[in-house]
């Protein structure tokens, strides 16, 4: 009897250890495989140089900038929309329109990214091209717009969760004072739910950064530092997807592990940040 209990405990424990090890192993592999490049002392060059393999320069700066550009821009677009939607769901219409919207948002989380990419290529890109009559339409703008749609469900669900935790009496009190909805949002809800909003933002940023397909399909993938939002750009994720076909032994190939490492570290920092702010709220 006791024997069985102990076996079970050990099995469960080792499963958890295995999962934790997997997490660390991924980081380990990224570092291990980028070591050959790091050892040559090229790390500074890689982080700051332009990308032109023909001239022996393998800098991923443009990709880092592209990643940050595209994700920040998509966040910029989707943040107000998400805020509005969660306000709609939680405060203005908690009854059927809100529930319907919530269901829709949940459904949106289930849509495959490749579908967003596909629709982006054949619907959004031509529109952007026509409207701005500039370039191919494959641009930071198109990618950010599509990404904004991709990440807003994450944000909306998270925001409305944290809105729901704002004590009802605060709302009733402001209601009694005759506050408009806008005032309610800015003076009552946001001050009370800002940690939740912040966490949602961080998580959404991670998600935007980690997405490959949309960026790969509709951001144009040019390796030049972008100068306007109508320029095309390449993200770290898309870069990995494109270079993977290169020769195993080339430096080119090895740099993608640095990209992977950078992505890993950026997203983990996001997670740590989010957890930290959640902890703070609990206190």
């Amino acid at each position: 009897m006791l024997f069985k209990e102990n076996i079970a405990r050990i099995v469960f424990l080792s499963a958890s250890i295995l999962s934790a090890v997997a997490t660390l192993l991924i980081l380990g592999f990224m570092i291990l495989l980028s070591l050959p490049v790091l050892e040559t002392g090229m790390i500074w060059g890689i982080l700051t140089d332009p990308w032109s393999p023909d001239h022996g320069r393998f800098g991923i700066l443009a990709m880092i900038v592209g990643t940050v550009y595209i994700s920040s821009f998509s966040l910029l677009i989707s943040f107000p929309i998400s805020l509005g939607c969660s306000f709609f769901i939680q405060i203005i219409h908690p009854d059927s329109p809100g529930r319907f919207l919530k269901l829709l948002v949940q459904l949106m989380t289930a849509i495959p990214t490749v579908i967003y990419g596909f629709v982006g290529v054949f619907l959004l890109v031509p529109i952007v091209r026509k409207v701005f009559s500039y370039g191919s339409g494959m641009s930071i703008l198109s990618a950010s717009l599509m990404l904004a749609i991709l990440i807003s469900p994450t944000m909306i669900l998270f925001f409305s969760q944290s809105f729901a935790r704002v004590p009802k009496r605060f709302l009733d009190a402001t209601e009694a004072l005759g506050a408009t909805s806008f005032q309610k949002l800015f003076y009552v809800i946001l001050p009370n739910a800002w940690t939740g909003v912040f966490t949602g933002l961080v998580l959404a940023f991670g998600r935007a950064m980690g997405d490959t397909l949309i960026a790969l399909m509709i951001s144009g993938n040019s390796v030049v530092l972008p100068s306007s939002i109508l320029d095309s750009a390449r993200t770290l994720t898309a870069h990995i997807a494109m270079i993977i076909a290169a020769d195993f032994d080339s430096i080119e190939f090895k740099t993608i592990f640095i990209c992977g490492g950078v992505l890993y570290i950026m997203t983990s920092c996001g997670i740590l940040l989010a957890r930290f702010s959640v902890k703070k709220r609990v206190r």
Partner: protein
Amino acid sequence: MFSWCCALLLATGFMFIVGFLVVKGYRGINLELIFADTRLLDAFFLKRQVFGGLFPAIIGTLSLILLSIGFALPLGLASGIFLAEYASPRLKSFFSLMVDILAGIPSIVVGLFGFSITIFLHHFFSSQIFPCLLISALSLAFLILPYIIKTTQVAIESLPLQVRLTAPSLGATKLENIIFVLLPSALSDIVSGIVLAIGRCAEDTAVIMLTGVVATAGVPRSVFSNFEALPFYIYYIASEYSNSSELMKGYGAALILLLISAGLFALAHWIKLKIEQKTRFGY
């Protein structure tokens, strides 16, 4: 007012995406899309390879789902149980940090990890090992593992104290309590989590792109062969289509994938509703 606009904006965005696919794609959906000119029975019994249809891609996606769920489920359940029932607070916060980080890692990095493992095995074990179905499934398993762990853990932890105490009060050991009471009580939650994880497997493109998916491979012969998959097919068509009939197939495939995802979502939702009904009468 503002939030009405946001809600409408989001809803129209969604409508555009779905509507666009439906309008463009519905004509493309027919048996020929899936089986090309092969006879149905031949295709099912693998007598003849289907060329030019989506059948191999669907089978590929299906086997991918089965395999990766097969890997991730036992591991995820066991770790979820450990985190919920056995771990001390310290261990718990460490492991759940690991799980959160794993959940935050971009899928392309997970794919890169799978790829590097392949290189590793190729170098040190057998030069017969190449990116293949098995590697893809393993990497995907890492991708969905955190979801399964989290849903299991949360489902078990959110059971009311009374339910947890019942079996021990009758002389059940911890393990018996878990097997006979806690898991069955949390089952529906866990199952709907698994369904969502299946959705992730079905949609993910970045991971398999790096670990063995190809545009034409036919139905996979073994776990060590290359394979096709629906999402990759869609990506491939979007970037490399050469004529309008191929493009049509792309639309069809996108619509099918969308339907599959929506179906899985509906299934998960239905299971959720089911439990809510049950708990209302039950405990």
